[in-house]
């Protein structure tokens, strides 16, 4: 028998009170896929992520994460929340932030263990920030902070990575670096990225999931102006990218 999919959502409805956010959403994401979730603001992208994480419960339908309930399965998920929610002046170093990803894996009482520190250090190394591990979060640039948070998501050794708008407020060059890193990580784990910026991302991903009350799935090759027009309305500028960053 095949192992269960990282994400399997079927016939899901979700509403906040009388406001329907998602209707009859079904979605399967397979092992080691690189998936991009797009859609207008308020279309339900973040809600869908929160359903996957078990932070919200659907009114009808099911969500399973590696065959388990989201609450049981969330330990396999590395999660990058939207950056804007954090206090950048909070007194922590880069290493301190990454260590928080070891919670749930480390011991319950007392400080983090040596093994936690080693893992956090290695992960900062992986995202290219090992020399900055003692730097306060407040002194890091937006792109460096985002890498710290990605390292925090990765240090729990997840099998599925969920990233909510990882490139918001980053400039293009940093954004490209970030996606190259994700592509590298995608060799080992499943990656789901929520973004506004479909034009750029479509050159990286296997599958695009459009979320606008309904959930529609498109292979990347299908992405054209008609679909985007369908999802966003007419005021969209599309920029074509070449395919040089696709999987080798």
């Amino acid at each position, binding site marked *: 028998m095949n192992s269960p999919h990282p994400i399997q959502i079927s016939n899901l409805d979700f509403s906040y009170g009388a406001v329907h956010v998602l209707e009859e959403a079904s979605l399967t994401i397979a092992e080691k896929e690189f998936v991009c979730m797009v859609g207008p603001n308020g279309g339900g992208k973040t809600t869908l992520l929160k359903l996957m994480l078990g932070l919200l419960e659907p009114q009808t339908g099911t969500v399973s994460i590696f065959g388990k309930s989201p609450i049981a399965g969330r330990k396999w998920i590395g999660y990058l929340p939207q950056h804007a929610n954090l206090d950048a002046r909070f007194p922590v170093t880069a290493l301190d932030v990454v260590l928080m990803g070891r*919670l749930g894996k480390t011991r319950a009482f007392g400080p983090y263990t040596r093994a936690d520190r080693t893992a956090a250090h290695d992960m900062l190394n992986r995202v290219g920030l090992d020399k900055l591990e003692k730097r306060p979060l407040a002194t890091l640039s937006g792109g460096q902070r985002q890498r710290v948070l990605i390292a925090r998501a990765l240090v729990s050794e997840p099998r599925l990575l969920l990233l909510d708008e990882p490139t918001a407020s980053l400039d293009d060059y940093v954004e490209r670096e970030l996606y190259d890193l994700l592509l590298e990580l995608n060799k080992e784990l499943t990656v789901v990225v929520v973004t506004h910026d479909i034009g750029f991302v479509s050159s990286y991903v296997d599958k695009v999931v459009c979320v606008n009350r309904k959930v529609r799935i498109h292979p990347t090759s299908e992405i054209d102006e008609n679909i985007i027009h369908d999802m966003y309305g007419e005021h969209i500028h599309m920029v074509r990218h070449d395919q040089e960053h696709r999987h080798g």
Partner: protein
Amino acid sequence: MAEFFQALLRHSFLQHALLAGLLASLSCGIVGTYVVTRRITYLAGGIAHCVLGGMGFARYMQVVHGWAFLDPLLGAVLAALAAAIVIGWINIHARERIDTVISAFWGMGMATGILFISKTPGYGEDMMAYLFGNILLVTRHDLFFIGGLDLFIAAIALLFHKQFVAVCFDEEFARLRGIHAKLFYFLMLAITALTVVLLVSIVGIVMVIVLLTLPAAIAGRFCQRMGSMMALATVICAGLTSTGLALSYKPELPAGAVIIVLAGLVYLVTVILKRT
């Protein structure tokens, strides 16, 4: 100053006062850092003012109904913990504007205390001590109480520091990592409530929030990690209470008020000199 040190050798009440300030500084530095970084200063203020209700009730029951066991300090502990649980619960579950809720508790706690004290014969002067503190009245018994609470708070913080930091920094992420975020939030409010009670005996209910938050706020301007912020806040708090006590002695000023003015001045100076 010299007179203070001479008096310190002679009078045990001054030794108690100094020791009380030093002991309370440990909790103040640790918990103040959580309060400042988690931005729950106003919530801590609400808890502090509910303490008057507990102290007033306890004093009333002691004097009028002869419940000797119900020390005002015990009343303060119970009221502070109850306030922390109720305000914390409303903050998490009810869809109310939290500042309005806190204000309501703030006022009701004070009012309840005033009502009980007004019905307690001959103890009007208690109210002054509760509201504005009287560090010179700290007894040997109080010192054991403060020391015990201190150890308890420090032990909790030492055991669960990493969880508290994670919950302060990013509560949702902590929850996703399997941390019982609500439990640690309430535990944090509980040690905040206990620290408030400790500091009330030094500076009183009205000014306690300043002593709880300003040492941590000052330390925060110089520290980049929670641990060092706590250590520096403890040292600053100890320095402020000791210096305030010493300065107040000769001119016979209320020590609590001198400590608070001193804290405020140091804070303002660091804000002006070290803009971050």
